[in-house]
């Protein structure tokens, strides 16, 4: 099993190198990328089964013993995240293959696209198994540098502008994270997460607070938590559709994952739980108010993305096994659904030539398939009963109600209101794009319509055909999101066990130091 753990990180990295050597053979590159990610998906599934039956795995890389060498840790949460992200990465890769083939590779310059994509995958997987803070920093850098390249791919003016914002904000967050690591090392003399939980607890409270806040700010920028979230809707929508889909699905969740590790293992005291809950409420409400005001689907979805990060923080802030189980379930649900929505938006953009809600109309007639593919994840994200979005929110609210504090009840109220507003914003977009007649678009006067959009641009119904492979990838993602609903019970059991494991550092420390710490 330990060999499999290292393969999760090693395979995409070697795959990236192999793909780079085949720069002028796009088919070979595609083959490498697809097979590597499929292999990681299988390995991830094997790891998940192994961890679920035999308990967590800790691998000492290079044979150096734990506090000195680098240690990779796979517990239920890590394994689950690896499986979900591998599935999402694979689906988006297939989608982008379809788009690249159809566009004559203008959107995705193939020679660097696949290697960069695999390096992004390396960073994501490495972050999920990192057992020490510096390794976590390095994996963040790996995935960020790859994302810098992907967000500015093609180098058009809007992408350079959007990419600049994204890059500078990410650089600042990395600098804060690195400074936090330096100070933690200065205070404790270690960066091993399992050892930190013991040594940090011995420090005075005020020093703990400073280190804690610095780590949370660094991760909060990456996870797009409310006061640190303004970069996201400016930068994500400009990237090519598949890139936006994978960024929205995965990158912010890596930040949330790091916050879970920080709150549960590095600083298990729950010093900042109240702050987290307040920030969660603000993230939910302000994010969704932004979404309601948008007239571009990609921007609208970016705001809902921020808003739903609030739900995960809610689960973390409650600080019970039930809250963590709900947060874990919600992360899995949100990764799939948000990616699916962005892929469906990619299909709309491909078919209609734009993502401006005010310019699109009558697409239910011209492309009913896309309408359905957009509608199902929409209901899911909005939390309509049979779907996993509803189950995740229900579990969160239940955990909050068991907590019973006034703040928890306020958050339950916010969460319910935000899910309604999500449904409103998305249903409004859906009915304008698909439901209304194309003729209505011309005289439609939207109070929010911008000057730039009310110009002479003609109504768009359908400009191009969409390749089957893109639709196929989106259908697969919709199927996965429905499967999460159908198999919600085993998944929730798994999340519950994962929640038990990460609620407090004992399990993690036992995994890394089976003989106990000195």
């Amino acid at each position, binding site marked *: 099993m330990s060999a499999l753990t290292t393969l999760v990180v090693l395979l995409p990295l070697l795959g990236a190198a192999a793909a780079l050597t085949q720069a002028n053979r796009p088919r070979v590159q595609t083959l490498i990328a697809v097979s590597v990610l499929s292999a990681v998906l299988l390995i991830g599934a094997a790891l998940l089964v192994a961890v679920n039956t035999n308990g967590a795995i800790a691998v000492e890389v290079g044979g150096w013993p734990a506090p000195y060498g680098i240690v990779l840790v796979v517990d239920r949460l890590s394994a689950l995240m690896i499986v979900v992200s591998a599935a999402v990465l694979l689906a988006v890769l297939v989608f982008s293959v379809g788009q690249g083939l159809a566009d004559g590779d203008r959107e995705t310059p193939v020679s660097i696209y696949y290697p960069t994509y695999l390096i992004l995958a390396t960073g994501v997987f490495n972050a999920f198994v990192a057992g020490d803070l510096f390794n976590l920093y390095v994996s963040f850098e790996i995935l960020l540098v790859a994302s810098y390249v992907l967000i500015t791919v093609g180098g058009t003016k809007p992408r350079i502008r959007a990419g600049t914002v994204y890059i500078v904000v990410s650089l600042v967050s990395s600098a804060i994270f690195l400074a936090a690591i330096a100070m933690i090392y200065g205070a404790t003399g270690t960066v091993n997460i399992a050892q930190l939980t013991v040594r940090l607890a011995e420090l005075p409270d005020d020093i703990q607070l400073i280190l804690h806040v610095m780590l949370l700010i660094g991760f909060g920028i990456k996870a797009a938590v409310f006061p640190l979230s303004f970069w996201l809707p400016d930068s994500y929508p400009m990237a090519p559709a598949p890139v936006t889909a994978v960024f929205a699905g995965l990158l912010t969740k890596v930040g949330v994952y790091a916050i879970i590790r920080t709150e549960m293992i590095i600083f298990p005291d729950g010093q900042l739980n109240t702050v987290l809950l307040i920030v969660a409420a603000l993230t939910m409400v302000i994010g969704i108010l932004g979404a309601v005001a948008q007239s571009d689907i990609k921007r609208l979805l970016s705001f809902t993305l921020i808003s739903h990060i609030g739900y995960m923080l809610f689960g973390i802030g409650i600080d019970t096994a039930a809250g963590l189980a709900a947060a874990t379930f919600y992360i899995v649900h949100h990764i799939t659904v948000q990616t699916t929505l962005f892929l469906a938006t990619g299909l709309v953009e491909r078919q209609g030539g734009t993502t401006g809600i005010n310019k699109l109309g009558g697409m239910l007639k011209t492309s009913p398939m896309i309408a359905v593919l957009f509608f199902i994840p929409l209901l899911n994200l909005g939390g309509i009963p049979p779907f996993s979005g509803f189950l995740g929110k229900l579990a969160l609210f239940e955990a909050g109600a068991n907590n019973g504090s006034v703040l928890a009840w306020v958050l339950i109220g916010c969460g319910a209101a935000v899910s309604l507003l999500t449904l409103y914003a998305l249903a409004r977009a859906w009915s304008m794009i698909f439901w209304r007649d194309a003729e209505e678009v011309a005289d439609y006067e939207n109070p*929010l319509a911008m000057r730039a959009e009310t110009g002479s641009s003609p109504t768009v119904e359908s400009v191009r055909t969409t390749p089957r492979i893109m639709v196929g990838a989106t259908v697969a993602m919709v199927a996965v999101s429905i499967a999460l609903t159908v198999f919600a019970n085993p998944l929730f059991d798994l999340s519950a066990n994962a929640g038990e494991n990460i609620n407090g550092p004992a399990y993690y420390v036992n995994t890394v130091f089976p003989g106990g710490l000195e």
Partner: protein
Amino acid sequence: MNASLTLVVIMVVLYSVGVYLLLERSMTRVLLGFLLVGNATNLLILIVSGPSGAAAFFGEEDATADPLPQAFILTAIVITFGVSAFLLALIYRSWRLANADVVYDDSEDLAMGSRKTSVTTDRAVDGDDTEFGTRATAAISTALDLKKQEEREEQESLAAERRQREIDEKEADA
């Protein structure tokens, strides 16, 4: 723990100048700010790494310096190096496209904020902020069209206003 005051002072200066530069609009200055902040962080790691000593593996048993922070610093330097190379490429591309490396406000945000504000007029930040000044010429043909497009959009907005005024007058007449 004893720390050298000189190192601390240098770190503080690097941080403050770096943060100041990061807040600039010109990307070249942002790059410089990033380099300064990166080096300040490297110094921070060095300061917290404890007393200096002989090289690890070769020195006396009790007099070696802690090798781990040195490994951190080396890794951080490599990452900073890679990111700076990418930023330089980005700045060059930005300059070729826009004739300037200044980051403008997001037009969608501005349009949302005040519907009456013209998107183009807010771009009136002049390109003097770069070392190329206004002397820079476009490296590719599309960059030349910017001025024309601004003029066109200005005329369009004037026409729209005129139309609005006519409608208003008609209504007033009625």
